[in-house]
């Protein structure tokens, strides 16, 4: 018979529900089965005997996890918690060095050093918050946060910036107070404040109108860009499929297969999921697009790729534009081979699509034809790149796509 022995005693955890401050005494009492009042008395005696009680309590507060630690650790990401601990630890070590210098007499002045420390702390907080967005990895889009998580992030960002600003202001006031310049500064601040209030009252209607106008202009620009993206996507997918359905209407099985494939792609796009079988790098995506065009139009497409990058939003735009250029070359290139040359580096993506067909006059393309204007030129422009189309009747066509990253 196998028996499993287990320790009936609870593990040492801070008991926040039964504690007065952080639940250290209550946790120790529960762990060893004694009265919490005795533990608290021990801390009080140790504090009165030289202050060790406070230090010991703080240490245990830091080291002993709370009773509901698993739930708490689910709420706070381990990386964020580690960063906070490293920052606090480094700050305290720096503070201990400053205090040690002060105790040894190697010191400038309280009026200078402490405001500088406060300014540095506040500055670090503000700087860290202001650069938080830039540190997010651009290649992998973050999953959409839950509303509660997003609200918590906003509260943390606002409180961090608020604490930083408060620290810097407190440092300034402390410095002015210590140097006896606070009353003079107060007069200046009051005067500036009064002038600002007067100016704001006079200019308020214009400022409000300007802000509203800028906001509505920005919203309109975003709507316009989104509309263009949707139009380009529909042109490249649904319209192309409908055109092929018309051409192959004599073969019901192929038409049904085309419709099924288009339906799957469209459903994935509407749900924000990657399309079935979507490639993960620029080179693979170009190969897939070339195979697709070759299959649908029966024209050979040769792809040569030098270097490769992960398929982020910019690379996806380049693939979309290249695919449209390949489709145009297959449709209007009089059956000539379509050559695709791609050169990818972390700094720059460069793709050429060439055919030896009859060519065309780019200036003569009607404005309502979205293939060139939206799916190639507009798409590249919206993602910060450019598309150059070189063609003339009788000399083939070359489309160059460039995206600086």
């Amino acid at each position, binding site marked *: 018979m196998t028996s499993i022995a287990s320790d009936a005693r609870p593990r040492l955890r801070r008991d926040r529900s039964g504690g007065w401050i952080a639940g250290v005494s209550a946790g120790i009492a529960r762990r060893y089965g004694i009265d919490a009042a005795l533990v608290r008395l021990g801390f009080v005696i140790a504090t009165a005997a030289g202050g*060790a009680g406070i*230090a010991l309590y703080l240490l245990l507060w*830091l*080291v002993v996890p709370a009773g509901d630690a698993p739930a708490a650790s689910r709420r706070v990401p381990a990386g964020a918690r580690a960063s906070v601990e490293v920052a606090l*630890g480094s700050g305290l*070590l720096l*503070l201990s060095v400053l205090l040690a210098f002060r105790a040894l007499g190697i010191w400038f002045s309280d009026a200078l050093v402490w405001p500088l420390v406060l300014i540095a702390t506040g500055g670090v907080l503000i700087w860290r918050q202001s650069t938080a967005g830039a540190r997010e990895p651009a290649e992998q889009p973050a999953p959409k946060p839950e509303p509660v998580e997003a609200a918590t992030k906003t509260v943390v960002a606002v409180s961090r910036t608020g604490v930083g600003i408060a620290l810097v202001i407190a440092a300034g006031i402390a410095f002015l107070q210590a140097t006896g310049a606070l009353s003079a500064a107060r007069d200046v601040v009051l005067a500036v404040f009064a002038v600002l209030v007067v100016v704001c009252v006079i200019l308020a209607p214009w400022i409000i109108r300007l802000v509203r106008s800028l906001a509505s202009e920005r919203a309109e620009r975003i709507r316009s860009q989104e509309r263009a993206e949707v139009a380009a996507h529909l042109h490249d997918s649904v319209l192309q499929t409908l055109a092929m359905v018309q051409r192959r209407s004599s073969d019901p099985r192929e038409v049904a297969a085309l419709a099924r494939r288009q339906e799957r792609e469209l459903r994935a796009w509407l749900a924000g999921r990657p399309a079935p079988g979507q490639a993960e790098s620029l080179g693979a995506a170009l190969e897939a697009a070339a195979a697709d065009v070759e299959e649908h139009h029966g024209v050979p497409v040769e792809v040569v790729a030098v270097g490769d990058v992960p398929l982020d939003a910019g690379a996806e735009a380049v693939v979309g534009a290249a695919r449209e250029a390949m489709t145009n070359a297959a449709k209007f290139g009089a059956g000539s081979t379509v050559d695709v040359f791609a050169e990818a580096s972390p700094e720059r993506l460069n793709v050429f699509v060439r055919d030896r067909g009859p060519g065309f006059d780019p200036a003569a393309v009607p404005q309502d034809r979205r293939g060139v204007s939206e799916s190639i030129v507009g798409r590249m422009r919206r993602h910060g790149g450019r598309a150059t189309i070189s063609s003339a009747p009788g000399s083939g066509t070359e489309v160059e796509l460039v995206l600086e990253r």
Partner: protein
Amino acid sequence: MPARRPDLPSLAAGLAVIVIALLMLLDERGSIELSFAVFAPVACAAIGAVLLAAGLSRR
């Protein structure tokens, strides 16, 4: 049996307690005078070291 890795935060906390205890012992024997000006940086350094160790071990 695999070698057990030392827990860095516990190690730092233990060392910090030992240092504080030594300082208190020296104060008791009259070798040093453990005033607030001396104790404050030591307490800050101890707590800072424990936090730093905890943060680094979590990364």
